[in-house]
């Protein structure tokens, strides 16, 4: 599974990037994106690439760093297919690079 997507970007709210290691299968993106959509938590940008032998993938999510984020993090950590979550404050260079494509 490889997928890149950039959606609306709210300039004013500080951003954070979540880096998820997930089991790679066709449903995992639905699990991750569905969780954010269900809880009305906007994802500004998303990127996903398979890792090494393809059994795992890495997903980066650019999200608003507001006071609901800690609760979202706990929810993400509960997903069965999410093996690890790393929080990066601010934007990730990955997305700055991707932004080139939508200029």
């Amino acid at each position: 599974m490889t997928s890149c997507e950039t959606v609306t970007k709210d300039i004013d709210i500080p951003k954070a990037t979540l880096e998820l290691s997930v089991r790679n299968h066709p449903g995992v993106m639905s699990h991750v994106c569905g969780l954010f959509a269900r809880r009305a938590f906007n994802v500004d940008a998303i990127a996903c690439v398979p890792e090494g032998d393809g059994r795992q993938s890495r997903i980066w999510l650019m999200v608003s760093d507001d006071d609901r984020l800690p609760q979202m993090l706990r929810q993400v950590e509960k997903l069965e297919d999410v093996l690890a979550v790393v929080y990066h404050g601010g934007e990730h260079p990955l997305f700055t690079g991707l932004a080139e494509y939508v200029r």
Partner: protein
Amino acid sequence: MDLSGAQLLVRLLENQGIETVAGIPGGTALPLYDALAESNRIRHVLARHEQGAGFIAQGMARVTGQVQVCIGTSGPGATNLLTAIADARLDSVPLVCITGQVASGAIGTDAFQEVDTYGLSLPITKHNYLVRDAADLPGVVTDAFRIAASGRPGPVWIDIPKDVQTARVPVCCLPEPAVADRVPPLDSDLLEAAARLIELSDRPVLYLGGGVISSGAAAAVTAFAARIGIPAAMTLMGLGAMPADHPLALGMLGMHGARFTNNILREADLLIAVGARFDDRAIGHAARFCPEASVIHIDIDPSELDKIRTATVGIVGAVKTVIEALGPRVPARRRGKWLLRVAALRETMPLLEPDGDDPASPYGLIRTVADCVGDDAVIVTDVGQHQMRVAQAYPFRRPRQWLTSGGLGTMGFGLPAAIGAALAEPGRKVVCFSGDGSLLMNIQEMATAAEEGVDVKVVLMNNQSLGLVQQQQELFYHRRVFAADFRKSPDFLTIARGFGWHAVDLDREARPRAAIGEALRRRGPVLIHCSVDAAEHVLPMVPPGAALTEMIGG
């Protein structure tokens, strides 16, 4: 050994200790049903609607605490199961739901009876699978049972295409049956911090939720409360955690809780939330709930901590383990003044049970049934006024005595859940209090009950109305009752008899108390019908969005 995917699945269910499953067959589930027919260890209970099958499995799971299984075919079978599974999710009931799916090659072609079961079940399950290879079944089934039972329990859905069910797989041995994951060790600093908060508190209250029941912590929590002398309020899901007649039991808090219960909470300086999730029906306006209290929150689900109310001390862990570890760290302390205050509030703001002496009134019926059946019986409800009255007034004295749809509030839960309870614990009487609106939502399961001969009694409080809706319209919509009163009502006695049930009409009984006793003593399914007044509101009541102490009536 060479088995079909379906045969392997049945072996795996047997291996997991499953003895009874509920479901309805259909095209894409036929290989599985053919394999089930060969099993002499699994009994299949044929429901009459898949939602019924889901709730039968829930009834079994709620009384035993074990993971239970329901089965359906693809398409409509799967969509009919959704409500029961969503209900299990919100009330943390461990289930494994298995559905047939169209053959792998047909997925995505709008084939006959194809729906995106994976997509539909995703937001209402703890986890879900679409099995693509029969060789994956041992791993998937074991994981499904493990996930359903681990941490905060919940439903897991396994969708299996027909060709995966018929594919041959070499099998050498079955995996070890799944067991729940261990929980991480407790943080002793947090335990110590919680113990100090309790020690220093002058007006502590326990707030016990369904997590106390599901973690098997009722006895431990009751002992803890008794030793330290802390009164305890229970949520709808927590009823039975502490015996209703325990001197420290405050009954149910929340929208239809007693005035004294909600007022005691308002005065607390420390709230100890145990296996509870600060649901709006329980706490009213969140910012005004226990305004003066620090909060200790104990829950196995880390995402519950700080979700609604930020905890002063939050402890993640199995409730029973936490309470057992916390107990010895807290010195007993006499809080005479607080307990006197609690007693005074209890005295001045009691729960009123109008007409409680009349066995043909709602509260009187509840009292009479409680007097007749004792603590061994399982009490089930549907959703509505009758449910709230049973929650308020029934003297629950043990965990898993009480089954109700709390989080989703699903009308139609009662009858099939009662059947499931009776199947799982045939030695117990099972009494389901229902309303005429709710009973009609799964009345077809009367056929299942009659076929299985289960010892289920339905006590129908018939107000010819969607009573709780009518109440809200009368209170909050200028008395404009719309689409809530039934202009024509069926003859429930004839219907029950037509399904092969025994039926008793209290409206025609000169001695209703005796008639209730006799009906309850009878073995097998019985309908006890009683007309009640739709104009009677369930009180007191916290208007939606108000603070807990801003109650109407009662």
